[in-house]
């Protein structure tokens, strides 16, 4: 039998609630938890999130927001990525553009990812913001 699945999780609303800090604390914590699960599912094949954790297939994302792109030591960025990103600083807007379509922002990047769902992007960004 086809089991009934619950309604699709509203990532956008969850992220908004996280970001605005309103709503019940338990709900907000749940939503950040959901965002973390999404990030783990989408990102942890290549990236680590914790302080002091090593690079993987991709660079560590701890402290990403506010960091200069293509500059973290110990990771070998592709030439295409470096030429597109050098000098930029990671902020929410850049991250949103990046997650929308990495190959459009930096042709030749090794990271193949595009996310059309704005709610999911927002959730991922909120989680990454929390890594500091």
């Amino acid at each position, binding site marked *: 039998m*086809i*089991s009934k*699945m*619950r*309604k*699709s*999780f509203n*990532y956008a609303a969850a992220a908004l609630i996280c970001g605005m800090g309103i709503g019940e604390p338990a709900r907000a914590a*749940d939503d950040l*938890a*959901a965002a*973390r*699960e*999404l990030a*783990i*599912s*989408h*990102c*942890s*094949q*290549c990236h*680590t*999130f*914790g302080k002091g*954790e*090593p*690079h*993987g*297939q991709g660079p560590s994302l701890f402290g990403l927001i506010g960091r200069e792109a293509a500059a973290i*030591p*110990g990771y*070998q960025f592709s030439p295409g990525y470096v030429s597109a990103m050098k000098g930029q600083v990671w902020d929410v807007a850049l991250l949103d553009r990046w997650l929308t379509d990495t*190959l459009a922002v930096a042709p*030749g*990047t*090794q990271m*193949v*990812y*595009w996310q059309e769902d704005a709610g999911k992007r927002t959730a991922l960004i909120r989680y990454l913001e929390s890594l500091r």
Partner: protein
Amino acid sequence: MNKRESSKPRGVTSRRNFLKAAGTGAAAAATFGTVTLSAKEAQAQTFDAEYDIIVCGGGGAGLPSALFSRWLGNKVLVLEKAGTLGGTSFKAAYWYWVPNNAAMRKAGMEDSKTDFLKYVARLSAPQTFDANAPKYGMNEWEYSMCEAIWESASEGTELLAEKGALPYRHVAPVPDYFYELGYKGNTGRVLFPKDGSPSMSDGGRVATRTLSAACRRDGVDVKTGHRVQRVIRNDKGEVIGVEAAVEGGGAFRVRARKAVIFATGGFTHDPELRKNFLSIPVYGGCAAMTNEGDFVRISSPLGVQLRNMNYAWMCPISLDKAIARDPSLSGMFSVAGDSMIFVDKRGKRVVNEKLNYNELAQKFFEWDGASVEFPYLVLVSIWDQRSQDHSASHEYGRLIVPPGTDDRHVIKGRTLEELAAGIDARMQRYANYIGGMRISADFVANLKASIARFNEFARAGKDLDFGRGDRAVEQLFNGAVKEEPGRKNPTMWPIGDQGPYYAALCTGGTLDTKGGPKTNANGQVLDVGDKPIPGLYGVGNCVASASGRAYWAGGATLGPIIAFAYRAANAANKEPVRS
């Protein structure tokens, strides 16, 4: 929200949860499988979307299958379980082995269908191999599958290149792994993504980029975070769609007018399937974390024939990374260092450390009936400062890594005694995983004797115990070593008599398993009567490979996959639209 296990190594929490329904036993039976609709139900069935061809899986088999299908004019959807595309192939070097490829023909490098078939037969059916028999000792099915690779790998490859989906460069000098068998075509079959690095280790990233870009350019719909759980059939038993669980909740039911092509990979990351189908206790491997044998579960109620479930593409792996389920785990395609040996828990060499990775991996699983154990389940790689300085690499899963990279797997000691203590401590940490293995009381004495004996061989350039460096493939994968003018065997150099020394624990793992439902040479999944299940196809590691235990050459995973993706797409394209 789902309950979560706490304090697990990264990656595990989400996957355990996200894939909870993909677990074992009864829960799986309830969630995976098939739905059969009566005619009335089929009429009334609401689908969320409709396509000509649905491809389940967006990795090394799925993306080519989708593109070939699309280029034949079909409306195509790719459903990918993970959040990103590429699957196992993303991390891979992505060499692809294409017999009789256009580049080798252009370069005047001879290939031969009969020699190709003899070569694969010799390796995949060694006990029945007969160069004079009509099918060289392979059975009907094996022969037809291998013939299909010969027929279609080049054609599929050329089309992918022509369309800009997978431009390649020809790596002409690369030999087949068993070059020494002396068959025609034993050099020149390997192709590599054109923009990959000179060391050819990053092809998977390049290929995933170019293949997905072609999908987007040419109008293949792609949905990530969609885990196919069931096929939907009409009352004639024909496959007419699939149902997927959507990331974050909800279901997605989609109609396939012509066919569903499964390309969901093997079962490396399902401990239950591993335990019950592989006869060896592998710890895991570098397959995509989402490769949990979903197609085994989905297809079983359809009355398929599971074949080759006992074999996998194999390689040594770091024990630490395997136990940690580290997603960056790469197979050890190349064992780094020349002043380096592997020893067992007694401190003795037991194997040629530079043996081709799939073959080397078998050593870990030799059973000893006298001591009733797997005595080599863990081997210890030992190297000196010289190899540390000259053979460090972040590629090909090498254990010797440059300063500043993740070296948590590395044990250090100023002396061999100190190193041994570190090795023992590390084994104790993993006691529950390795049956309590510890170094023997005479480990250090044996190790010193092993090093002395190895050093003699290294000076002479000939490994009298295990033949290290005797084969072309071992030279190919030697990795960087210190320049030593005049040395005869670049795979060996005496280990220094001064520390510091380094060590790392190794075991065997799978790139992925290669067993599953039996298909015909067009990728059609067969029922127990050997008849195609209408509308159902399988390509890649989710279905049975005709290679048996054999790893024919670098790229003998992906080259044949391209052949079958091409054939499956062409056959699926010809399917009638079903009600």
